[in-house]
């Protein structure tokens, strides 16, 4: 793990390009998702897909940071997914990221959060070093919020979750606000670090026309499991400690007393009686 991120954090950054990375995932756009009954994994083909809405905040924050550093930064977008996920990478480029890579390989299919985090951490090692990595709070399909903290752990760098504001950055350190129960915690961390950002951090911009043109013209290289030197036992279904064993529709269980309110007074009287029976009033 040593050295993956270059010199130790006490170096001076003055006059040096900051290297930023953003992790984005493509997710299904509709609620109509098909599931493979054998493996319990999602069938990702033939459906409309978009960049994970919460990842837009991560992209926006990286772009804002670059602007704050007067352009003295480079932003690399990294995504893992099927070939069509290239669109999510291009969306991020159209918002102002400089380049992007798609990690795509049959052998990665069926990865759970740990296997995904391992593959992404390998890609980051390959493409880095980076000073700062941005991730979204969670995806709208996986909904775990586990990938960011797991990537940071596998890279052995600090993770800052629920980041709602970057207060200060420079001299190899960052100060952020974390939106946690009851308020905001102010935390300082050395760089490199990984931030999982929340919605409240910014308002993502819409891509400009020139951004869209740039995205169309930018080539997004596709990396395979070999390119990132992945240990095959750590990726895909084989590298996933969890297994989906059952998918079902939530069953609706209560059979209550439903009355018509044609006579509102009577209905309210009956409700009061019911609340009394249940000891609520």
């Amino acid at each position: 793990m040593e050295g993956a991120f270059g010199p130790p954090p006490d170096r001076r950054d003055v006059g040096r390009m900051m290297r930023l990375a953003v992790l984005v995932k493509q997710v299904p756009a509709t609620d109509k998702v098909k599931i493979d009954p054998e493996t319990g994994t999602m069938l990702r083909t033939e459906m409309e897909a978009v960049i994970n809405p919460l990842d837009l905040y991560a992209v926006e924050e990286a772009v804002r940071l670059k602007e704050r550093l007067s352009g003295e930064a480079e932003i690399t977008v990294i995504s893992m997914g099927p070939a069509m996920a290239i669109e999510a990478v291009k969306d991020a480029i159209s918002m102002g990221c400089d380049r992007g890579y798609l990690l795509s390989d049959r052998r990665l299919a069926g990865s759970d959060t740990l296997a995904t985090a391992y593959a992404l951490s390998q890609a980051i090692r390959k493409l880095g070093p980076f000073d700062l990595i941005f991730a979204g709070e969670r995806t709208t399909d996986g909904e775990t919020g586990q990938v960011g903290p797991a990537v940071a752990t596998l890279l052995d760098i600090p993770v800052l979750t629920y980041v709602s504001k970057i207060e200060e950055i420079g001299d190899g350190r960052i100060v952020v606000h974390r939106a946690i129960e009851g308020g905001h915690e102010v935390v300082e961390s050395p760089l490199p670090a990984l931030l999982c950002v929340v919605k409240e951090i910014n308002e993502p911009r819409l891509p400009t026309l020139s951004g869209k043109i740039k995205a169309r013209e930018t080539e997004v290289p596709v990396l395979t499991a070999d390119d990132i030197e992945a240990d095959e036992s750590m990726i895909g279904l084989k590298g996933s400690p969890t297994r989906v064993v059952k998918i079902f529709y939530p069953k609706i269980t209560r059979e209550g007393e439903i009355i018509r309110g044609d006579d509102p007074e009577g209905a309210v009287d009956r409700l009061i009686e019911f609340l009394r029976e249940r000891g609520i009033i």
Partner: protein
Amino acid sequence: MKLEEYRGVWTLGEQRDGRIHTVSYELLAWGRSLADKLGVELATVILGHNLADQVQELIYRGADKVYVVDHPALAHFSVDPYARVLTALVREYRPEIFIASATTTGRTIMPVLAAKLRTGLTADCTGLDVDVESRQLLQTRPAIGGNVMATIITPNHRPAMATVRPKSRRPLPRDASRKGEIIFKRFDEKMFESRTRRLGFIRDETAESPVQDADVVVAGGKGLKDGRNFDMLFELAELLGGAVGASRMAVDMGWIPYSHQIGLSGKTVTPRLYLAIGISGAVQHLAGMSSSEVIVAINKDPDANIFKVSDFGIIGDLFEIVPLLIKRLREIKGKEGEGK
């Protein structure tokens, strides 16, 4: 990994500002059923500073054992020392199951821990059970935007790890006759070092709504038509001694702050009474309230999904029903007042 070397159920206790938080007791309720089913011990591990005089309470609430790590560096949650200490404890005692609450702390430390231990973790479970024969933890959670439920196992790795949403279960009643063992663990100073530093905390009262701690939740949805109509619900909530919740639609319309949102992407609540007013009962909304003890719905659409989870429902116009209900409750209150 020899699975049979791992025995026992663990929960992660949580403290905030040096006080044990109620999520710790909710977790013990979950853990108790799992441990009893498997016929093993239930232990809680709690990290913090100056906790000694409080930890007995964890036994009264269901733990057989409590592992306490007390150190100034643990006073507030910090990833590095928490991860090091918890990894060391898991390696030493080898629990087969380790669950935490899906608070910002639980959702941060558990993936870090799972990555260090290279084991499986399932986020935000709404149901936990065990298959006694295979000793597998059955972790059930909403998947794909809450449209379906998925049951997940961790077949070949231990501990099986999961987070459960705060308030998805009530704590067990306090039983001061329960006996258990409290073990204070000490570690080398190096274990408590951290790369990050907490510089301060900015309290924000508005970020918290009392909805999760309320015994009665009066929730409003799109049917209220206008933000001002929430005033009615606040009045009703006050009469019932409760708090106001909302559907995502109502929040998206800007009628009430996000901190009041109930459901998949909002808060989970398990009050004694959930009163849903002008809420259709989308699965994502149900995900946050369907374990409430008593559910009452008022909706003008007889086919509204909310009626399927209700113990009592009125098919009618909320603008007629709610003012009448407020009036009746006021009368009752008034009478009670006179009687005293």
